[in-house]
């Protein structure tokens, strides 16, 4: 497919994650262990947007009626054929840009678990994400060591479960709603000079209506400070008076720029230099930057950012983004250029710091492109970082477990998995008492409410409902895309879906 065609085919998603996200997706390799209806749907949603390569591991089996009833990617004509062959080829056929490989396991020769345990680090390192429907301890331990994310996802009856094991999330392209940062309370020379060159009161009504609201706000802050001992409005009464001040400067009732200045005045005062998410990241620099094994591109950039902040009165680099403001083209572009220039200067300073850092690091330092640096600087207020201990049985189970309906559903998934691990079968209604007993290994709970949920889960005989599988496959694929592209903020780290009440709930298991 030609480049132009590709851009057209993927147009609707390129508008979300741009070419950088798309190329991450196209170079990604994922592994699906023992595909279910849920993970088949998930895979479909990754093949369509053009994931690079997928590998499926499954037992060699023939398609039966049960397979056909809940998996759309096995057709009625395929009865009796090899399940893994048909599934992989029917899925790949959705997008010829995608390649695949399959690993058939002959049950008489050993189990999938045996195969997994026999693979070396080199085998696992080829994958960017591993997706499985159960929490296999040896696999999770191995992949955690190799820092390969693993997603556990499944659905039983009306309920769905999703857990992501990833030791750290380090994201700078978080896609906040807006990157606008006006800094009206802390101007720099060029902005101040431009503002000073405008004398609002001497302008005629036409010119007066063409001054961007940012300048009006700037002048209002100056005026307020002058008359209030250099203080800013703090109480709601004062903030109201501040608005009145701007209103009193109007020369005509219909001046959109003044209305914009009033409507956006609340944003002036809740401006923090360094938001808490960035402060928290700075507090981890020693742990991550100083440790060669943990020092990723993200942490080199963070280290440079921290030095930048220390050298710049505690300010992050300016994003340079402006909102549209009612004004003439000339006034607006002039202001835009002032912001753009400042952003470029900040970026250049950050680049200098980075170059020095990398010199210090010497050979071990990874190359960082200008594009990445620019994006990082622009988004520096909205960095996301989180770490996980990845314990199979979370230590904070007791803390998050509050006997709410949703936490009982979460508990039930752990109970059923434990039962399956111990007995190698899915529980039936006869096993409910045993399941309740297992629950006491995790937490103490209200057995009656738990009973109801377990009953609902067991009643399904482990079967997936197509709608719930499809929905969970949709959620899982969104999360997979976020993990692979390193854009937007992924689930951190566990979620259940309750299709009876149509709700989700999430927790950070740790």
């Amino acid at each position, binding site marked *: 497919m030609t480049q132009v065609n590709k851009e057209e085919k993927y147009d*609707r*998603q390129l508008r979300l994650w741009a070419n950088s996200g798309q190329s991450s997706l196209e170079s990604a390799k994922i592994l699906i262990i023992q595909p279910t209806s849920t993970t088949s749907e998930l895979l479909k949603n990754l093949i369509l947007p053009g994931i690079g390569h997928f590998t499926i591991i499954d037992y060699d089996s023939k398609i039966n009626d049960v397979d056909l009833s809940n998996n759309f990617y096995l057709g009625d004509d395929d009865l009796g054929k090899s399940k893994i062959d048909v599934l992989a080829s029917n899925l790949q056929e959705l997008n010829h840009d995608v390649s695949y490989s399959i690993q058939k396991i002959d049950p008489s020769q050993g189990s999938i678990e045996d195969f997994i345990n026999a693979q070396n680090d080199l085998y696992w390192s080829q994958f960017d994400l591993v997706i499985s429907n159960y929490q296999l301890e040896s696999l999770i331990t191995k992949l955690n060591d190799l820092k390969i994310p693993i997603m556990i996802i499944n659905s039983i009856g009306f309920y769905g479960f999703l857990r992501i094991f990833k030791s750290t999330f380090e994201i700078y392209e978080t896609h906040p709603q807006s990157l606008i940062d006006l800094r009206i309370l802390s101007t720099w020379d060029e902005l101040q000079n431009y503002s000073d060159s405008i004398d609002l009161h001497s302008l005629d009504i036409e010119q007066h209506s063409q001054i961007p609201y940012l300048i009006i706000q700037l002048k209002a802050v100056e005026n307020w400070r002058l008359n209030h001992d250099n203080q800013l409005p703090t109480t709601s009464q004062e903030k109201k008076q501040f608005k009145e001040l701007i209103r009193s400067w109007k020369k005509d009732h219909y001046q959109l720029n003044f209305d914009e200045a009033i409507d956006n005045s609340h944003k002036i005062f809740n401006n923090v230099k360094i938001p808490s998410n960035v402060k928290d990241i700075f507090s981890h620099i020693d742990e991550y930057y100083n440790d060669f094994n943990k020092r990723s591109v993200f942490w080199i950039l963070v280290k440079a950012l921290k030095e930048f902040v220390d050298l710049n009165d505690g300010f992050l680099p300016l994003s340079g983004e402006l909102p549209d403001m009612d004004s003439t083209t000339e006034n607006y572009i002039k202001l835009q250029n002032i912001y753009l220039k400042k952003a470029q200067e900040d970026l250049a300073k950050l680049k200098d710091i980075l170059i020095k850092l990398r010199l210090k690091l010497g050979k071990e330092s990874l190359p960082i492109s200008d594009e990445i640096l620019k994006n990082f600087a622009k988004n520096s207020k909205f960095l996301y970082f989180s770490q996980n201990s990845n314990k199979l049985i979370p230590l904070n189970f007791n803390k998050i477990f509050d006997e709410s309906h949703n936490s009982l559903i979460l508990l039930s998934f752990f109970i059923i998995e434990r039962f399956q691990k111990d007995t190698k079968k899915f529980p039936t209604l006869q096993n409910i008492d045993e399941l309740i007993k297992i629950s006491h290994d995790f937490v103490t709970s209200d057995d009656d409410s738990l009973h109801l949920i377990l009953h609902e889960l067991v009643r399904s005989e482990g079967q997936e*409902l197509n709608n719930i599988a499809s929905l969970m496959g949709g959620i899982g694929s969104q999360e997979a895309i976020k993990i692979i592209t390193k854009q937007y*903020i992924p689930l951190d780290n566990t979620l259940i879906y309750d299709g009876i009440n149509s709700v989700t709930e999430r927790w950070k298991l740790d």
Partner: protein
Amino acid sequence: MSRRVLGAGGLGCEILKNLACSGFKDIHVIDMDTIDLSNLNRQFLFRHSDIGRSKAEVAAEFVMKRVKSVKITPYFGKLQDKDEEYYKQFTLVISGLDSIEARRWINAKLVHLVDPDNFETVKPLIDGGTEGFRGQAKVIFPTFSACYECSLDTLSGQTTYPLCTIANNPRLPEHCIEFASQIEWPKAHPGEKIDTDVPEHVTFLYEASLKRAEEFNITGITRSLVLGVVKNIIPAIASTNAIIAASCCNEAFKIVSSSNPTLDNFMMYSGTDSVFTYSFAYERKPDCQVCGGL
């Protein structure tokens, strides 16, 4: 029993698959669109060789080939072509439409079908919509719960720019693109409508926007932005369609099987920052133009 799907686009493909796999036997699908290259990143019932064909027809063929037990009747045309008698035959309606106007039309149609003395005439309407990583699903029992019209003010709608800005004080690349399409195009091509599927038309708009932008020292015009503004393109991915379509079908399944409570009545999903869902009951509007007073 008969269900139907409106719109065989991104949501429609998913809805048809889900209904067929959940055991629905008789499904009707209406869509007036034909298949375009830019659909293939999510509308998984269509292939490259199907470009230009009717979405409803290709979707129906594909699903019936995979699932032999289902009968899907496609209609390649507008919702408005069908009369009340046609809509009366269905148990419920699921809409995966992409236009507000079409949603309002089917909503009003189903509200007007209701005969207060006959519960059978209440056809539940399940409506889904997506944008990027976000989406929403609504369950409407005409005259019993808030109808689509009652919830209209929750929509943000299309961004529009004041004409005086476009004509006199452009500041953003979007203003230049609007100038090219609203003012330059009619001047150069009197009487001819813009067809964004014709590359020459897009090239004209791109070049005119670029010229206008350069004149005013505005940066940021790209072909992709020109198309986005002129066609009002909404980002769309397979994942979100899967989530919203499955929510709609799960509600449909619960309604017909009376197995569990149904969504009351509005659900929002957002995957931009972790996973966030929010459900709430939208109240009927007593003065709603469509269902008020009924």
